[in-house]
């Protein structure tokens, strides 16, 4: 093993209420391709954000030693100066600018006060050659496919004389050929002396390309493996090998055999992204059942929920949707709500709650007509309804007239839940219902879910937390790259099996 180019020592990073990283140590040898794997939320991105200066020095504990020196980055520009470049999943190019403008954006080649465009174009061409991309540097980035855009990003990094290249899930939005090209390029760059760190969920490609692999789990380093000793099975075991603490309320009742929702051969095409996001998805949900949708972030689970829930983002859909055996077509979330479906969104602040309004207004929003006569809202009945949910769901707020922005995450989530329960749904879709909330509130939400299915409601739970999916679901569907990669019963589902299907 070569001398390390990067050493991160005893890194600890806390967010209010959560320890994202605890005492993580991580070493990358010069000239290698080092892969970083772990489940959603294991701390990979946080670690890379510390390395690239997004979380500045002083914001975390521990040392970052790069090129033999302890670095104290106070921003991305510092880490760039040191020779570290990070390429995110969401590309950071400006679509309306040309390739050469993008490559030298922020470190323009100047001739006195002015930009030397001729030199820029010439050098951009050289950078493109380095990444094996044969395009005119004057092309607008908007006109390139995702794969080529990614190569432009790498060219941009190379133009800054990069020593350490970090790629965050570079192949997640690429097709097979583009992925292979990218991996080939990484090997190429390795021979040119560039060290790379790659975060990836695709274990096969990790094993194919990595010299060394570090596995993170729950904010800790659990293993560092060299390419000779690694197998897919071993990796998965390290990734999911935590103890399942039994925080899930006991399953006491069996769902009936009556199917309330069935989706057949469901396809969705995203018009702005310009690609298919769901491919031939079929599944069903029985009365009184909780089904879990497991999968990686970006696998298409939220899109699946939205496409069923009235398709507000306007995907082009094909396939069949049956509610209680009757074929349905929804044109607006309104139609889905009327049919008895409720959808608690993943991003409660972004599209779940109206933060500037109070608890009661948020709870009644989706079903105001229930507390109205001839279009006039009964304000007193509204307070009564809100107080009822406050008590039932144990929402901790001094009054229902408190703005929801002043509530904690767990209590905001309960307000979302209350809002959708007030609609009186038969089918409840919960998208990441416990993200970012503390253990106590999590348990309360699990208990509420169990009570609801006992009363005959059916629940679809989308979750990236494997133990939660396994602990709560009667059946688990595994979604991978817009397809249903498998279906497991509660009895047969294990973390290893789910992870195996999800990373295929």
């Amino acid at each position, binding site marked *: 093993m070569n001398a390390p180019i990067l050493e991160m020592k005893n890194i600890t990073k806390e967010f209010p209420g959560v320890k994202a990283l605890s005492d993580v140590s991580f070493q990358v040898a010069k000239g290698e391709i080092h892969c970083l794997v772990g489940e959603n939320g294991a701390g990979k991105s946080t670690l890379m954000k510390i390395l690239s200066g997004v979380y500045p020095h002083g914001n975390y504990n521990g040392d970052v030693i790069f090129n033999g020196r302890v670095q104290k980055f106070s921003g991305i520009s510092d880490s760039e100066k040191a020779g570290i470049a990070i390429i995110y999943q969401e590309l950071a190019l400006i679509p309306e600018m040309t390739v050469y403008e993008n490559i030298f954006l922020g470190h323009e080649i100047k001739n006195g006060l002015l930009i030397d465009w001729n030199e820029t174009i010439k050098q951009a061409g050289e950078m493109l050659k380095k990444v094996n991309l044969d395009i005119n540097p004057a092309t607008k980035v908007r006109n390139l496919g995702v794969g080529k855009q990614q190569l432009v990003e790498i060219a941009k990094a190379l133009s800054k004389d990069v020593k350490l290249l970090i790629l965050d899930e570079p192949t997640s939005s690429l097709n097979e050929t583009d992925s292979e090209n990218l991996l080939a390029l990484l090997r190429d760059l390795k021979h040119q002396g560039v060290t790379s760190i790659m975060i990836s969920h695709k274990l096969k490609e990790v094993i194919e390309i990595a010299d060394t692999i570090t596995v993170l789990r729950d904010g800790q380093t659990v293993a560092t493996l060299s390419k000779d000793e690694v197998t897919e099975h071993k990796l998965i075991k390290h990734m999911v090998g935590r103890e399942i603490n039994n925080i899930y309320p006991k399953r006491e009742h069996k769902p009936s055999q009556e199917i309330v929702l069935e989706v057949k051969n469901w396809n969705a095409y995203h018009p702005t992204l310009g690609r298919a996001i769901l491919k031939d998805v079929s599944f069903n949900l029985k009365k009184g059942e909780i089904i879990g949708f497991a999968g990686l972030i970006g696998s298409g689970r939220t899109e699946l929920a939205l496409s069923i*829930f009235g398709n*507000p983002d306007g995907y082009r859909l094909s396939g069949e949707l049956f509610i209680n055996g009757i074929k349905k077509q929804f044109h*607006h*979330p*309104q139609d*889905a*709500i*009327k049919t008895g479906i409720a*959808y608690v*969104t993943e991003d409660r602040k*972004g*599209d*779940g*709650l*109206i*933060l*500037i*309004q109070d608890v009661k*207004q948020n709870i009644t*929003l*989706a079903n*105001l*007509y229930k507390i*109205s006569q001839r*279009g*006039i*809202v009964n*304000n*007193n009945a509204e*307070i*009564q309804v809100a107080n009822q949910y406050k008590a039932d769901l144990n929402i901790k707020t001094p009054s229902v007239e408190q703005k929801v922005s002043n509530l904690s995450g767990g209590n905001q989530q309960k307000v979302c839940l209350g*809002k959708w329960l007030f609609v009186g749904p038969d089918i409840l879709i919960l998208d990441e219902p416990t993200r970012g909330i503390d253990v106590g509130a999590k348990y309360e939400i699990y208990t509420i879910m169990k009570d609801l299915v006992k009363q005959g409601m059916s629940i679809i739970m989308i979750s990236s937390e494997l133990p939660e999916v396994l602990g709560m679901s009667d059946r688990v569907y595994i979604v991978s790259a817009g397809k249903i990669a498998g279906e497991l019963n509660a009895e047969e589902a294990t973390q290893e099996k789910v992870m195996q299907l999800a990373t295929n």
Partner: protein
Amino acid sequence: MTFFENAKKVLQQNIREYGMYIALFVIMVFFTITTNGTFISSRNIVNLINQTGYIAVLAVGMTLIIIIRQIDLSVGFLAGFLGAIAAIAMADPKVIPNGLNLPVYAVIPLTLSLGVMAGLITGFLVAQMKIPSFVASLAGWLIYRGAILVVTESTGTIIIANSAFNAIGNGFIPDIPDIGILPGVHKLTLLLGVVAVILLVINEFNNRRKKQSYNFEVLPTEIFALKLIFLAAIIGGITWILAGYQGLSWTAVIVLLVTLIYNFVMSQTVLGRHIYAIGGNPDAAELSGISVKKLVYVVFGSMGMLSALSGILFTSRLQSATTTAGTLFELDAIAAAYVGGVSAAGGVGKVVGSIIGALVMTSLTSGMNLMGIGISYQYIVRGAVLAAAVIFDVTTRGKN
């Protein structure tokens, strides 16, 4: 808790809401002193209300527009254009070439419907074509400005001969026959004031009783009494001032009705709540089953109708349609809404607040005119007040 502690608490909790009323009050007292009482005279107050009318109705519509995170710049010239259309529709063909000689009771609904249509067109561009409302309504601004010139091209200013129409902007409600008491006072106005106070008291007591029946917290008794006395005094005072001249003007009646209706819709109905919701978070509203598109149409349609009403009020007040009618009305309306506490970020604002905002702005003009301050300084002062109002609004936000 003592009376004063209670009063302090209520005041603190509602400082944002009461801020504008206090500002209006301070401005009025200031001008009353500096003009030796001329400002508060019946005649001036009546004038002030009539002057505010055509901006006030625009400000009401603009409040809804800004609440849903849009803007409408076209309303000024739309008002001017529709005012001209109304004038032509009523005109005698012998005097005005295209005159239709229509009766006033046909012209008003016609003008209002045209306003709704114009509003729906802007709504279509915003909701359906996804054009930013600033651009869509700027196009309208240019188009209606040209349209006024087109329809008044051959005639120039169109004088309106219809006295019923002209009464809208200049006339007063009739009085009950003289029965020998209170000579020189407009008795019907006084009577309406008394009725208003009685209705207010009954309504407040009803609400309080309903709340108590649900076991909800209500204002402490003495504060409640104080509030009633205060509100009654304000209504009584205004009524007394108005009754001292010629009574309630028709403009005041119209503005009052528009305010009451819009305030009711916004604060008490499902429609109003949905409008606030899409302003607060359009994505969340859409996912809650609210059709954002439909409401954009509704709000722009209402704005168009109020633009037509503003045009009618203004044309009637001048008793003529001019080639420059409506110039800068839109900015006065926007300023009134912001002074009245509407938030540029959307989702926050009250119709009554915008009316108060409009009154603040016209009071400044009227008071400074009476003091003999030049127009140049008037603009500067009004600009400073607008900035101060928004600063107050931003700094007190989120404190409760």
